[in-house]
């Protein structure tokens, strides 16, 4: 029997009635279209292969359980299943199509992990402690302005009000605080980098 010339409906019916070769013909007939459709969404060969397989597992189970109503729409039905599985895939991964690394370009050479690892966190803590100790050595008026500006994130307007000096004086104290800090750091060769 030449099954290649049969319509999808005839093949589906034959498959439901136990003709396993009908499934092979259906897959052969539509595999390229369904596979390409999935690949056009996920752009990953392995994921496409998985979704293609899951699609036909659903098709096989539905047909064998008698859940499919033949209305001459076999391909649209399979495409809908594939489409839903593609959505499930993105939902599971909680993101849009992922970037594929090529041999000549690796996305991780451009992007880096913003969070610090344990060692870097430790060093960061030490550096911050060193900076605090250096600040303690500053003259009281400069220290006061620097702490308000950097740690309390106050504006110079607020600092001038609170310390009862003009904005220019507050700016000047901040400037000298930074100059003095740099001087001490240079003098003692203190390394404050992570």
């Amino acid at each position: 029997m030449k099954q290649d010339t049969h319509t999808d409906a005839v093949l589906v019916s034959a498959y439901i009635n136990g003709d396993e070769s009908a499934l092979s013909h259906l897959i052969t007939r539509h595999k390229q279209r369904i596979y390409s459709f999935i690949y056009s969404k996920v752009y990953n060969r392995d994921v496409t292969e998985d979704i293609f397989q899951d699609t036909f597992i659903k098709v096989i189970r539905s047909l064998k359980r008698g859940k499919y109503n033949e209305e001459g729409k076999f391909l649209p039905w399979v495409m809908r299943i594939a489409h839903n599985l593609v959505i499930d895939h993105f939902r599971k991964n909680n993101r849009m199509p992922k970037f594929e690394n090529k041999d000549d370009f690796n996305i991780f050479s451009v992007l880096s992990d913003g969070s610090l690892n344990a060692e870097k966190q430790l060093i960061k803590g030490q550096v911050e402690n060193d900076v605090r100790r250096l600040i303690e050595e500053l003259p009281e008026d400069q220290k006061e302005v620097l702490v308000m500006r950097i740690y309390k994130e106050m504006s110079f307007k607020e600092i001038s009000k609170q310390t009862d000096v003009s904005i220019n004086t507050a700016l000047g104290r901040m400037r000298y605080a930074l100059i003095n800090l740099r001087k001490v750091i240079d003098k003692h060769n203190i390394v404050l980098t992570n």
Partner: protein
Amino acid sequence: MQKMYSKTSHPEQVNNMAPKDETIRFLLDYSKALSVKRYNNLKFEALLN
């Protein structure tokens, strides 16, 4: 300009792609192994190897 923006970054031909033979073979074997038994309006799936 239009050409630039519409250029795909995926050089592979999306329209001429097909699954691996082993995937097809797996599906045909799965289909042969799967049998659905009906009992009092209930359906049971069995995978027979």
